[in-house]
């Protein structure tokens, strides 16, 4: 198992700084997910670990060795791409063994590794096929197989599931997680899909504009977002933000919303972050709002409430008796909400 560490990394592409002074330590055997909106530099960061883009300054270490200027093939990595990137003129078998053949691995050893990967990914019957004869899911498995036969120390995934339809994506996602458990290798995975990030990651790195906004376990990042960007990026429906003030006793007052939070020191302007599951509609709730919209989701409903200037979502799991226009009383779970500094957007 291998660790990866990036130190003071700077990447400039076409004169534009993409990554700025970035430090990141990836633990051995970890499944690290780089999450962020498109253009946040997460793919560029992954490519710099793979050696596919030049770094301006800083260091990339893999397994304790400085790999900043090493060739991609010398880094002990396997990579899986969004577009599968299979060699179209080669069979599945040749696709998987291409790297080993270049490296001059003995034939018997190539055979053994290809067979093992094919068995793990259920590709045995497809080894003689060309990529064009495979479905999208099968192609992506071949691409994973190609990374597997390299017996890489670190696996890099660049949005590997984005080209698949929703059902296949969910299935392959589970298979990836099982694969990680079986191999125990270090995996770094880039996605803009928060469901993938939440389900796969042992730690999530949330990025914005080439900088890391928060690193933590999926629950940590979700429950205790470090700033408003992370809070707004994760969760669907998104976290609602309410502007207001915090008094010295830890009481938050906004338009139509008042809440006794954990005492947080000095009085100041603050923003309250409320997730849908923090809002409970109940008859004895201390606040009231007007139902504006009810979205049925099958196993639950999302009820949208207008309360003063704020719009809050609430999850209702039993039969929903609310209709737009109703006035309902609700409560907010003060122990779970987030509070942010009105100026900096950082968590208080």
């Amino acid at each position: 198992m291998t660790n990866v560490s990036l130190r003071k990394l700077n990447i400039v592409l076409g004169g534009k700084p993409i990554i700025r002074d970035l430090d990141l330590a990836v633990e051995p055997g970890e499944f690290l997910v780089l999450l962020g909106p498109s253009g946040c530099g997460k793919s560029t960061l992954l490519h710099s670990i793979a050696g596919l883009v030049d770094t301006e300054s800083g260091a990339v270490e893999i397994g304790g060795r400085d790999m900043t200027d090493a060739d991609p093939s010398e880094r002990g990595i396997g990579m899986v791409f969004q577009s599968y990137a299979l060699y179209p003129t080669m069979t599945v078998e040749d696709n998987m063994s291409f790297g080993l053949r270049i490296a001059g691995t003995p034939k018997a050893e190539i055979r053994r590794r290809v067979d093992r990967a094919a068995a793990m990914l259920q590709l045995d019957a497809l080894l003689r096929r060309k990529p064009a004869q495979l479905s999208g899911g099968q192609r992506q498995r071949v691409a994973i197989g190609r990374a597997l036969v390299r017996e890489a120390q670190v696996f890099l995934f660049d949005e590997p599931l984005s080209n698949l339809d929703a059902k296949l994506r969910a299935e392959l996602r589970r298979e990836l997680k099982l694969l990680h458990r079986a191999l125990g290798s270090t995996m770094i995975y880039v996605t803009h899909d928060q469901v993938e990030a939440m389900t796969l990651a042992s730690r999530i790195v949330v990025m914005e504009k080439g900088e890391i906004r928060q690193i933590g376990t999926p629950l940590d990042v979700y429950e205790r977002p470090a700033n408003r960007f992370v809070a707004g990026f994760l969760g669907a429906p998104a976290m609602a933000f309410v502007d207001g003030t915090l008094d010295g006793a830890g009481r938050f007052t906004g338009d139509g919303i008042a809440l006794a939070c954990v005492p947080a020191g000095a009085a100041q302007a603050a923003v309250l972050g409320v997730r849908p599951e923090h809002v409970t509609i109940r008859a004895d709730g201390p606040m009231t709002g007007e139902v504006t919209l009810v979205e049925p989701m099958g196993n639950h409903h999302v009820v949208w409430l207008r309360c003063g200037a704020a719009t809050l979502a609430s999850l209702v799991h039993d039969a929903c008796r609310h209709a737009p226009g109703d006035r309902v009383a609700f409560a907010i779970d003060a122990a779970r909400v987030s509070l942010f500094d009105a100026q900096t957007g950082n968590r208080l």
Partner: protein
Amino acid sequence: MNPDTTAPPMAAPAPAAHDQPAPAVRRARRRLTPARIGLYVFLLGAALFFLLPLYVMVVTSLKTMDEIRQGGIFALPHAATLEPWRLAWSGVCTGAACEGVRTGFWNSVAITVPATILPILLGAVNGYALSFWRPRGANVLFGILMAGAFVPVQVMIYPLVRVLALAGIFGSLPAIVLVHLVFGMPVMTLLFRNYYCGVPHELFHAARIDGGGFWRIFLQVMLPMSLPVVVVAAIMQVTGVWNDYILGLVFAGRDHMPMMVQLNNVINTTTGTRQYNVNMAATILTGLVPLALYFVSGRWFVRGIAAGAVKG
């Protein structure tokens, strides 16, 4: 892994589906409207316009000179003869020698084969390097190369003659191949660069991670998947080199006169009577190679013409 996730082994690749528009649409399209009739009349007229000269050439080449002198260029030959064809191929005078255009044919083959293969290979390497390895100044380099495509050949003839004479290869087979290589380079490079720009960059990245170097990725990954563009490039280059007159005249030298130059010598001979039947036969013989190429690969030919128009 869950076996249910794999599609059935024979899952049809996508292209199968979109070949069949609804039959109703097709039927509606086939109905004859005045516009359709007008279109057919125009197409027929255009076809006749181009086919009529060819018809005249063919019938004339099959007539004796006596019959030609009687006039009636559209008339079918009374007594068709292949003698003019025999003469054109192996007997007519092309300047000093009287051995027909066949020597020119073999000269043209000797020029066209290397002047097709070399520019394609070099153009492919150029296009590959420009789109994947992006050396410093790649865009400037490509811009200069493209500018070269717009300079008329005639402007370069004199300097090229001097340079080749200085190198001591003026008027030889290598000289004419080299000249074709130089003039073919911009279009060949453009063709391959555009093709490789359409190849996902991730494929190149995957090959880099697999340990491929410049030549290995080119030879084992990129070139094998370039067949469509190689065919297009070959059509363009063969047609261009075969139909070339001025470069062959200037650079090939006496011993390697291409067919096109010899044809001109045949037709412009000023002594004796003009042998129209032989001239026609020699002309058809000379045009046969590009014509055959066109018939064999019409679909690719059109693609080759369109290839210059795709995004750069």
